[in-house]
């Protein structure tokens, strides 16, 4: 079937995503070239967390998060790490639990509040994820995870941009070749600096935080965002 599909024309764009900018919803087109660049960047970040061909990753995400998560999935494929998938809803936390129980996970990516709370309520959170060397979680899951003694890295969706903490956990890296994040008294602003299908110009994200411009001790030159 792949061969049959190879004869089909490619769509002009890779997809259409949506992000929140304050109380506004902004639709954005996703181009093919930036999809490739985002994958390269995601691969660099996952490699910093130790992702390798010999490990297992669990990705918990909703399909609407595709503009941010699909490059991560493509990066997993390029790295060769075997990845499992689980939904983000609290009632699907048993799927995350099943993966954690049966496989020696080396990376869990995408944990959100519902899953973290459901696992905490079951009393299994620390037992299931305590041995996972790399956990990347959304900000709303971090209080629950840290209360269980876990040290997650931060995932932040900054408008159309993905920001990921490295193992230094000193702010979430943003790809500086693609995005400019500015800190203002009214919150963070985002602009595109590369040729992307969607161009953003100082878009208020409705997120408060600070931007660290100096190099990170992980070796990345990318700026980092600290939320809150």
């Amino acid at each position, binding site marked *: *079937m*792949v*061969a*049959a*599909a*190879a*004869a*089909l*024309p*490619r*769509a*002009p*764009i*890779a*997809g*259409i*995503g*949506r992000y929140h900018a304050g109380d506004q*919803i902004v*639709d954005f087109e996703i181009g093919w070239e930036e999809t490739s660049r985002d994958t390269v960047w995601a691969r660099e970040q996952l490699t910093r967390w130790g992702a390798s*061909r*010999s490990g*297992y990753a669990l*990705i*918990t*995400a*909703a*399909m*609407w*998060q*595709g*503009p941010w*998560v*699909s490059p991560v*999935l*493509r990066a997993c*494929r390029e790295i*060769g790490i*075997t*990845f*499992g*998938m*689980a*939904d*983000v*809803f609290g*009632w*699907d936390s*048993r*799927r995350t639990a*099943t*993966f954690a129980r*049966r*496989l020696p996970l080396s990376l869990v990516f995408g944990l959100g509040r519902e899953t973290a709370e459901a696992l905490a309520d079951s009393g299994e959170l620390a037992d299931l994820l305590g041995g996972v060397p790399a956990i990347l979680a959304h900000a709303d899951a971090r209080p629950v995870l840290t209360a269980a003694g876990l040290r997650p890295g931060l995932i932040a969706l900054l408008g159309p941009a993905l920001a990921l903490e490295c193992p230094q956990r000193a702010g979430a890296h943003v790809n500086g070749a693609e995005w400019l994040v500015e800190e203002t008294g009214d919150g963070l602003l985002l602009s595109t600096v590369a040729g992307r299908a969607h161009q953003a110009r100082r878009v208020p994200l409705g997120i408060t935080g600070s931007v660290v411009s100096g190099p990170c001790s992980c070796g990345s030159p990318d700026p980092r965002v600290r939320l809150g």
Partner: protein
Amino acid sequence: MPTDVAGDRYFQPGIETMPRAELTKLQTERILSLVPYAYERSAFYHEVWDAAGVRPADIRDLDDFARLVPTITRDDIRAFRSRTGDPYAGLLCVDPSELTSITSSSGTTGEPEFFPELWDAQPPLPLASARDLWELGLRPGDRVLAPAGSFRGFFDSFYQMLGLVPVYADTWMGHWAEVLEVIKAYRPAYVQLMGPIIIELERLAATHDLREAFSCFKGASFAGQPLGRHQARMVREDWGLELFVYTSAGDTGTAWECREHDGYHLWEDTVLAEHLSADGNDPVSGDEVGELVATNLDDLAAPLIRYRSDDLVRMSGDVCGCGRTHSRMWVAGRKGDETVVRGRPVLVGDVWAAVESVPETADGLFQIIRPSREVEELRVRVGYEPSGDVGGLAERLAAAIGERVGVVPVVELETADEILARSTSVAKFPRVVKK
């Protein structure tokens, strides 16, 4: 390969209309390759077949396969995993490091079961539906709404492979007022629906013109549960949306309706589908209800071989009105869903028909509550819309169900929102629960 985009109906005409004799030849070749492959690599099959006294050399054709290779059940797989601690339950035929991905079953009857996947360009589950989406009418350049769930994998790269543009809106329940705005803006051609979403749309129909909203759609798929008559009529007739229902092909992939809407096509170059008596290994005739027993023909990672699906189906190998030669099946129910109340069998489908017959519960939202298959009392939890007078509803439901199944149940009423909150999967709403 897809031929004339403008007019041709088939994605892979040579395979989809393959004469039966050629299909059988293809299946035979794949089975004769699969059996020694699995025996040499899978600890589970090695053990099960050894216990049955079967060696790969004994299998020379499909008759030998059906006569000698033992059938397996989900419980067999779980027991092997429990006994050995192998997360793949002995099914894996490759080194774990070779796996690309692992998805899992919905888990409505227990812990999710792993589906280890080995792939290059696209994951196997969505890829297997390429012919079905082509039949639905999707063509390069069409926009499609991303499905809500991800546990069977991200489908966006598959859509992109078909030249489609995924629109990443949150299509899970509770978001459809916003989704309708997205539909208005982008005029997508396809979406995947589920029962709870149809219920949400039914509410939105009071304030939105759904016929206009869905006028851009070539079709929508629906899965996860049988489609109730009330919902089917509403979606198809009131909203003008052509629904393509699909179901599991015995956990080897999916089986979809074509535009004839007369049964689910099993792609028999990917699955060997047997139709056996539910309590034995004898084949049953196509118009009788039997159990779907499935064998993966295209899975090198962890193939299911003679897997008893628990799905009770009718089956036909007659050529469909669409011209496709692959067998079709019609689902009658799940083997494990039969409840025996004081010795009397009660089927989900019969309770469903009774619940649908009462206007306030026409959406067919219900669950049979049973601690075990055999019970002394039939308990049914039913979801209703809280607007309007629901006086005497429980009594009317009990009477309708009692008349239909011969056992008057204890009815527990919940609002539709309350019962939907009991969902345990984006793919399935459980009809039989323990509590």
